[in-house]
């Protein structure tokens, strides 16, 4: 017999109900991280009123969880107004931020909206490392201060670290720093290409040798986006486009923030009409995709360990049916660790 949460998930899958929606409030950011996958777009951002209207639409669509991401969400002066509206309307909110714009007043505000999760990017255990990645001096101190302010207020804070050649040697210290601050470390060892498909950020991907040296026996996140259950079970097909959706700052609806296949724009259409458009071939293909269709992956000997990111495949090859190099590496690593234990 299914648990109710599994029943909910199955119902959502059966009806393509977007119970998780990640909204990029802005692509503006006060940091300039070397591995960032965002490409600036000069189109205007959605207004706060429009975002509130979208939230109203999402209630009718069955969305429980809304993740807010950027850019840096707090560079928007109306960010708190939007988050407060989402709180009033009854959403589980997950905030993804670099923390540098969180002072005492904002920390109080964040506590008041009772987010289901807060993820703060922590890219090093020292200001030298962190600031060299963000390319903004002083960002490490501000991020640490934000973590402390939120933890002091009793909130569950996750630090999110993309492990790269630039910080892997500090892996243990990053983890210890996060724990000592009262937060929970989440680490991911994969780097995405840019939204344009450019591979520049992936130059920082750690080598196999570095994995063996620093990550032996470690549990890493496989998903680039916050999952509602965080159980990244092996699967060649993810939730994107089925029970997970994303909206960029310009109103484009996409399967996921890392899967920028534009399905429609909310300035012109309602969410419902985009999400349930039976004439959209891309959506149809995503939703009808079966593991057996992903021929290259099905026959892979690491398939049983793979949490394939359809977005990464799309970014790398403009085809979500392809293997994604970061997923392949992660699957091989998991298999290696599994076999090492035996």
């Amino acid at each position, binding site marked *: 017999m299914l648990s109710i949460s599994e029943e909910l998930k199955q119902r959502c899958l059966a009806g393509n109900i977007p119970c998780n929606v990640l909204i990029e409030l802005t692509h503006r950011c006060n940091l300039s991280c070397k591995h960032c996958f965002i490409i600036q777009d000069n189109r205007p951002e959605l207004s706060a009123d429009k975002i509130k209207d979208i939230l109203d639409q999402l*209630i009718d669509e069955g969305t*429980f969880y809304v993740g807010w991401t950027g850019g840096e969400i707090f560079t928007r002066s109306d960010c708190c107004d939007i988050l407060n509206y989402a709180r009033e309307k009854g959403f589980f909110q997950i905030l993804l931020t670099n923390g540098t714009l969180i002072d005492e007043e904002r920390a109080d505000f964040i506590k008041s909206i009772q987010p289901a999760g807060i993820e703060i990017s922590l890219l090093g255990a020292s200001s030298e490392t962190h600031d060299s990645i963000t390319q903004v001096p002083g960002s490490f101190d501000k991020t640490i201060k934000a973590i402390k302010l939120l933890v002091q207020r009793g909130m569950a804070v996750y630090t999110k670290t993309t492990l790269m050649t630039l910080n892997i040697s500090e892996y243990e210290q990053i983890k210890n720093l996060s724990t000592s601050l009262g937060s929970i470390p989440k680490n991911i060892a994969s780097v995405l290409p840019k939204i344009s498909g450019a591979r520049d950020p992936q130059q920082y991907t750690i080598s196999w040798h570095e994995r063996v040296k620093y990550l032996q026996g470690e549990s890493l996140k496989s998903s680039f986006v916050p999952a509602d259950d965080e159980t990244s079970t092996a699967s060649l097909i993810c939730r994107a486009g089925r029970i997970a959706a994303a909206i960029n700052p310009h109103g484009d609806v996409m399967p996921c923030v890392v899967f920028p296949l534009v399905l429609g724009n909310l300035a012109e259409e309602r969410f419902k009409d985009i999400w349930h458009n039976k004439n959209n071939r891309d959506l149809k293909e995503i939703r009808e995709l079966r593991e057996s269709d992903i021929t290259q992956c099905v026959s892979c000997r690491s398939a049983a360990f793979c949490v394939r990111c359809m977005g990464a495949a799309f970014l790398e090859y403009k085809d979500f049916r392809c293997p994604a190099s970061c997923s392949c590496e992660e699957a091989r690593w998991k298999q290696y660790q599994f076999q090492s234990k035996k």
Partner: protein
Amino acid sequence: MISFKKYVVRNRDMIWRMVGNEVFIIDKDGTKIHQLNRVGSEIWKNSEGNLTIRQIIENICNHFEITAEEAEKDSAQFIEQMLTQGLVTLTDTPVTV
């Protein structure tokens, strides 16, 4: 036995959505999920604080092919369960959710 003159008010801390024809409710810390059947979902949707239990029962009779007696019994039982689980409260006067 609860009084049918009372108004039923949903707990604002509960987050709920219609998923297909049924209501799923998640408590605010995300740890407990409630799934309501179609009749329960209809009662839940009517629990905005502006209808008495008697009025809700009338609505249920209009929506589903059940007798008034069945609707009374099932609805009262269901509302009592929701009360026990903290999903709703009862008031003597109408309120706005």
